[in-house]
């Protein structure tokens, strides 16, 4: 199937790559189908709505930052990354992780009731 992305233009992906978020993402509940792309030269995964190309952002594995980050069985926890031209201002959302089961191709977003996890955690240091 063909999908349109802001980052990579129009691309062809196999249908079995589509990840279903039954409840969507917070604030974007109407969109339930996504693809997770990992360009060779990119540190980030790129998460794109299949239904609305304007909804697309980088994701980064939260266990890469915090070995003890809570994960559910078979689901990997990703944080939504907010880019900035200054790497020291690039942040990752540790408060509302995106959980993805890459085998079953399903996912969901959660808000963790834990004040230790910031919505804007600085992802890089010099």
């Amino acid at each position: 199937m063909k999908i349109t992305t802001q980052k990579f233009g129009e691309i062809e992906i196999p249908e079995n790559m589509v990840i279903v978020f039954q409840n969507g993402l917070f604030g974007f509940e109407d969109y339930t189908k996504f693809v997770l792309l990992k360009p060779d030269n990119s540190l980030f995964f790129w998460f794109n709505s299949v239904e609305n190309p304007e909804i697309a952002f980088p994701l980064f594995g939260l266990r890469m930052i915090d070995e003890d980050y809570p994960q559910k069985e078979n689901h990997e926890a990703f944080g939504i990354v907010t880019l900035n031209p200054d790497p020291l201002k690039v942040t990752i959302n540790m408060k509302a992780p995106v959980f993805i089961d890459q085998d079953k191709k399903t996912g969901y977003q959660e808000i963790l009731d834990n004040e230790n996890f910031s919505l804007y955690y600085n992802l890089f240091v010099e």
Partner: protein
Amino acid sequence: MLILTRRIEEEIKIGKDITVKIISVSDNQVKIGISAPNNVQIFRSEVYDKVIQNTVEATKTASTVKVDLSNYKIHKVK
């Protein structure tokens, strides 16, 4: 908005599955207990709003911002 007056230990039902109970009241704080089915998500509104705002910001910057990460490393939680 529906406004109800309740005393400590009294409850409110929202539909048949959700119960809200007033646990305690102090000067400027109310402690509330909520019973709801597992599929009902409960959030503090200000946190929920900020989560959405964060996603909107990430979406806005994603396709336009270029960032050179060559001299930086991942900031790990200690």
